């Protein structure tokens, strides 16, 4: 059976349409997981074609095969160690030079490959014509033109990939020729290594050693330290001749080679349209219109999501609560019935009424923004602001997500380059008031004290994010990384890809959050029916009553809020027996309660998301810190507000 199995890897820069091609190839037979032990995503899928069972792995979008990011390391290890039968290198025809720089590095790994020359339509509208035969000839690699968003050329690409494997068109492709001095050193190193056995091809190892690649150095050091020593000496010679460090020289020469090939294979004619996308880019990054557009888009998005979410959430909740009588008749209203309905079902309903109405539209919009290119413009505009809390512009994106729901937002922090920045961004994100927190702010303070108080609280929240973010940036060791980001041309995204990406995210959320919400709600129900809650309220009363000046019962409701923040308000109404909070709470109490609810803990699903990416210790630290901070803040606010009002 093994002869009918094929393993194909997709590799290429970010935003070249790799995931669109992946989706065309694999349809629904795919799943997204993590690389073992890494927070790098791994998308895999299977398809059947011409009697073959083909496994396809979508490698992360990267610009180089060095050691700058985890993604780069994972990709090159995969190609060298797992040895896919063929690598499909997706290349953006409209930015040929940069893409070929990556292609040349793949070729150095001496893997069988086929190039998918994608976005031919965009290249054409930019006035770039690529001579495919010429490119094939220069690279020694088959090149297939594709327009992935329209599905053009995908079948032929696959056929070509299989043909490449069948005919064994391996290792025939041309090498990049570096300058004479460099080639000489590469030759010398290969000669020195000829008796050693590595997983990587010798020429690749020689080049990487000259570049001073730490990971390869470490591996070769174990086999033969003499080789590393020689490589260092040779690299020093090159540095002496060129006046730049050896890695710079090699990168430059590789880029020169990529540039030469690109220039030889492409012809620039005047663009067909005086580029609408260019004008849109200028408009959306302009120092005035860009920010206006940003504010407008964000408001529109939030308005849409909250209106849609609110309506749908209410509708679903009415519908699902309509099932209560059936459950009552099936399981009775005794202890068991109470646990099944009030524990399991209400937990499930809570989950469903967040996911469907809020999270699904949020993801659809997010992926639309990302795939179209607007997200990178937002990062460009917000870089400056985010720098104040030690993060770069990209961190604005998970923060924005946080306003919808903190869970996907925390998972979204993976777009940051280093683990340190992921943690900082996630911490800041947990402070962002999510949709459920908004329900409390609007439902309590907004309804009973007026919208200006609600807005003031929102503003205060932003100040706190800023202050704590800055503090965290100082405390957490390490250097900040600056923004380096490609802003690709605007394009209309591929709908199916967006829907699939959304689906995977939602599935991920359900897997993380639902079990916790259901178990949590069961535990609380158990506590309620066994009468433990009163004891809890009494135990907490030094904090709630003495320090925060709230009714003792809020101790219970705030615990419910851990499941889902707005439950703290819903439970308050249930336990007090009224939704007219003005009868039972003073204005100061309302503000204090809301403040505490805003900050006191990431909800249980958010904690789960944190644990998943950062481990127990850090997640626990964030949680405990936020509880302490919220209590401190609430008490201080009580004293200040009592003085002022």
């Amino acid at each position, binding site marked *: 059976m093994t002869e009918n199995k094929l393993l194909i890897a997709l590799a290429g820069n970010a935003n070249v349409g790799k995931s669109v091609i992946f989706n065309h190839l694999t349809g629904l037979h795919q799943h997204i997981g993590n690389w073992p032990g890494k927070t790098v995503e791994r998308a895999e899928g299977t398809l059947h074609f011409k009697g073959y069972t083909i496994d396809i792995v979508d490698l992360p979008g990267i610009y180089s095969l060095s050691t700058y990011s985890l993604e780069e390391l994972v990709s090159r290890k995969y190609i060298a160690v797992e040895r896919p039968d063929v690598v499909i290198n997706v290349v953006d025809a409209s930015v040929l030079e940069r893409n070929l720089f990556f292609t040349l590095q793949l070729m150095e790994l001496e893997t069988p490959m086929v190039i998918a020359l994608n976005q031919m339509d965009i290249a054409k509208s930019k006035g770039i014509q690529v001579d495919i035969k010429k490119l094939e000839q220069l690279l020694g690699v088959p090149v297939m033109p594709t327009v992935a968003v329209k599905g053009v050329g995908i079948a032929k690409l696959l056929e070509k990939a299989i043909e490449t494997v069948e005919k064994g068109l391996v290792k025939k492709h041309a090498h990049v020729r570096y300058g004479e001095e460099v080639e000489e050193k590469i030759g010398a190193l290969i000669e020195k290594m000829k008796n050693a056995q590595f997983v990587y091809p010798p020429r690749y190892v020689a080049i990487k050693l000259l570049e001073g690649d730490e990971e390869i150095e470490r591996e070769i050091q174990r086999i033969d330290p003499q080789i590393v020593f020689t490589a260092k000496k040779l690299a020093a010679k090159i540095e002496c001749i060129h006046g730049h460090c050896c890695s710079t020289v090699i990168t430059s020469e590789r880029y020169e080679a990529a540039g030469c090939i690109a220039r030889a294979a492409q012809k620039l004619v005047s663009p067909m349209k005086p580029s609408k996308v260019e004008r849109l880019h200028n408009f959306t990054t302009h120092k005035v219109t860009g920010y206006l557009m940003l504010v407008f888009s964000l408001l529109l998005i939030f308005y849409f999501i909250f209106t849609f979410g609110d309506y749908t959430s209410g509708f679903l909740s009415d519908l699902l609560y309509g099932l209560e009588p059936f459950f009552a008749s099936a399981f009775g209203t005794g202890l068991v019935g109470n646990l099944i309905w009030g524990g399991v079902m209400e937990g499930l309903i809570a989950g469903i009424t967040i996911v469907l109405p809020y999270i699904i539209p949020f993801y659809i919009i997010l992926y639309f923004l990302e795939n179209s290119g607007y997200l990178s413009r937002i990062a460009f505009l917000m870089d400056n602001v985010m720098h104040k809390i030690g993060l770069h512009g990209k961190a604005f994106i998970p923060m924005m997500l946080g306003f919808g729901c903190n869970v996907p937002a925390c998972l979204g922090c993976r777009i940051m380059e280093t683990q340190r920045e992921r943690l900082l961004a996630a911490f800041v994100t947990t402070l962002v008031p999510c949709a459920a927190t908004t329900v409390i702010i609007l439902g309590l303070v907004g309804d009973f004290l007026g919208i200006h108080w609600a807005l003031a609280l929102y503003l205060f929240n932003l100040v706190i994010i800023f202050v704590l973010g800055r503090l965290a940036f100082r405390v957490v060791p390490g250097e900040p990384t600056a923004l*380096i980001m*490609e802003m690709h041309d605007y394009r209309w995204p591929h709908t199916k890809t967006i829907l699939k990406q959304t689906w995977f995210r939602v599935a991920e959320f359900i897997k993380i959050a639902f079990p916790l919400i259901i178990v949590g709600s069961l535990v609380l129900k158990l506590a309620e029916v066994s009468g433990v809650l009163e004891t809890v309220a009494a135990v907490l009363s030094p904090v709630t009553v003495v320090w925060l000046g709230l009714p003792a019962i809020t101790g219970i409701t705030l615990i419910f809020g851990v499941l889902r923040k707005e439950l703290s308000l819903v439970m308050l109404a249930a336990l007090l027996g009224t939704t007219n909070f003005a009868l039972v709470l003073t204005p100061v109490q309302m503000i204090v309660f809301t403040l505490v609810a805003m900050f006191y803990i990431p909800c249980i699903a958010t904690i789960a998301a944190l644990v998943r990416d950062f481990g127990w210790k850090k997640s626990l630290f964030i949680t405990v810190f936020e509880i302490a901070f919220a209590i401190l803040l609430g008490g201080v606010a009580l004293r200040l507000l009592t003085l002022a009002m």
Partner: protein
Amino acid sequence: MEKRNTEKNTLPLTALKQGEAGTVASISGGHGKGGGFEKRLMDMGLTPGTTVTVVKSAPFHGPLEILVRGSRLALGRGMAERIFVEKEK
């Protein structure tokens, strides 16, 4: 702003006005171990001798938008300050 004079007159990329172009002369590692970001810039195409055009900069000392090797990059200001260029006439 600190200007570094090596063999020729070079200025930091941030000193270029909108629409001006320069060729990359050197990238200074800065404090700490800056090797990572230097390599990253090279990988993104900012190798010595490459022409870089400053398209615009975001207000209040925000990032720069540059054109390099036919593609558009956003570059944090702190990083742009460490890229030294020779201004093109």
